[in-house]
């Protein structure tokens, strides 16, 4: 057993978890700021400079809130629901390559928690677990609104998983691997981001990512005005916090994933040419920053869309998922396949 390896991984995991939480927290702040900006308001500005301490205040509030579990709820399930949601949200980041390798004291430290060859499948597997959190939470509350919302959420999430998977298949056809690291390296080496090869695929993936994260315009599960707040209606204190956090973490991770899959991950323009002049560690750090910036851009897009596009009706949502995106992604896959074959066999 390599103890350094363990320590290094534990450190990396801690950093990533903390980073996710911080990003998630500040995403709430960002959300409000962006909303304010779009709506020509000021947004939070009391707690700290530019309201920067606002998320901390919010978090603290959640910690000290009273914990209410309705008598008719199933206590175990009631606690289990948000826990699953949170754990799942924390687990997705494990296979995302946050950067190249750092050389510290002669050791090569990869900025990826686990480089497994089935990275994409892993993400799919873990993300699909997320629906359990919502479903269990809604069901355990024993509240008609919660139950309905959770059923809706589950239907929505599974419906959009199909086109998402199909869109990814088209990507896999061009890359030929399930390992995220390899996908990123391919993009860096060729210098062409997958988004240009797979524009339609990227678009579909983007839409699906919105739906998967229950973000507007697909935020029906928590449609306040219809469902009293959705599946987490009965929740309070940190259990509510977990549901909210999980949503923002998911948003962060899916942004990172989109950046990784379609926009070159930690690669940045000129990376290969700079490799000779700069030290590798520096390149890695720049790469990490590049990925972070790309991710932030996507998070911004998430917010931008939220305050721009009105919410779908449920039938519209389902129609878009099943009748538009699935055929579209299938067509995308077949066209990709045909073109790739034509390129390689002529």
């Amino acid at each position, binding site marked *: 057993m390599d103890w350094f390896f363990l320590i290094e*991984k534990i450190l*990396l*995991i*801690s950093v990533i*978890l903390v980073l996710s939480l911080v990003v998630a927290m500040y995403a709430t702040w960002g959300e409000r700021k962006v909303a304010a900006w779009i709506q020509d308001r000021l947004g939070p500005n009391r707690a700290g400079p530019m309201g920067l301490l606002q998320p901390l205040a919010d978090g603290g509030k*959640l*910690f*000290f809130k*009273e*914990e*209410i579990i*309705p008598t*008719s*709820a199933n206590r175990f399930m009631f606690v289990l629901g948000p*826990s699953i949601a*949170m*754990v799942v949200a*924390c*687990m997705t980041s*494990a296979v995302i390559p946050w950067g190249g390798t750092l050389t510290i004291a002669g050791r090569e430290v990869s900025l990826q928690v*686990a480089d*497994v*060859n*089935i990275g994409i*499948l892993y993400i799919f597997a873990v993300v699909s677990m997320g629906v359990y959190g919502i479903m269990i939470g809604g*069901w355990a509350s*024993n*509240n*008609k609104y919660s139950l*309905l919302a959770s059923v809706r959420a*589950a*239907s929505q999430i*599974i*419906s959009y*998983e*199909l086109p998402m*998977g*199909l869109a990814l*298949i088209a990507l*896999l*056809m061009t890359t030929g*691997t399930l390992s995220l690291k390899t996908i990123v390296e391919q993009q860096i080496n060729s210098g062409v981001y997958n988004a240009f090869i797979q524009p339609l695929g990227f678009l579909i993936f983007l839409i699906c990512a919105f739906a998967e994260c229950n973000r507007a315009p697909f935020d029906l599960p928590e449609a306040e005005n219809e469902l*009293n707040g959705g599946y987490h*209606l*009965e929740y309070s*204190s*940190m*259990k509510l916090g*977990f549901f909210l956090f999980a949503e923002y973490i998911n948003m962060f991770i899916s942004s990172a994933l989109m950046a990784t899959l379609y926009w070159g991950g930690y690669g940045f323009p000129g990376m290969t040419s700079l490799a000779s002049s700069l030290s590798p560690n520096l390149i890695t750090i720049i790469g990490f920053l590049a990925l972070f910036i790309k991710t932030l851009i996507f998070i911004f897009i998430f917010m931008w869309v939220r305050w721009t596009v009105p919410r779908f009706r*449920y*039938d519209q949502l*389902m*129609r878009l998922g*099943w*009748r538009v995106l699935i055929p579209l992604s*299938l067509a995308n896959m*077949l066209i990709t*396949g*045909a073109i*790739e074959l034509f390129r390689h066999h002529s």
Partner: protein
Amino acid sequence: MYTETVFLSATTTPFSYLPIVLQLIAALGFVGITMLATHFLGPKRKTSDKLINFESGIEQKGNARQPVAIKYFLTAILFVLFDVEVIFFYPYAVNFRELGPEGFFAVLMFVGFFLCGFIYILKKGALKWED
């Protein structure tokens, strides 16, 4: 039939998954500790009114765990079916180049059947949410 595929070839060992286990432990620890912490930190002033379900002030009637509309159920079942069909594409996509045009035509056929099923459920109105 038995081409030597690279599908799930053994470049990773069970050892590669160790960090994931670590991350799981970390996540579980975080969640557990936070849960416990809020449990002890928060005030506890429970009243019977507070502990009933909130249904917008309307008196609660019956159990909420009623069967929901069959539509949701149908969606779930269709997802299960189509999802495994999608799963079939993964090994194909990874070995896409090795399998060449022949494999592509086979997959075209598969997609054909997939579409048949898809069109069938559309026509049957399984995905009609409008009514």
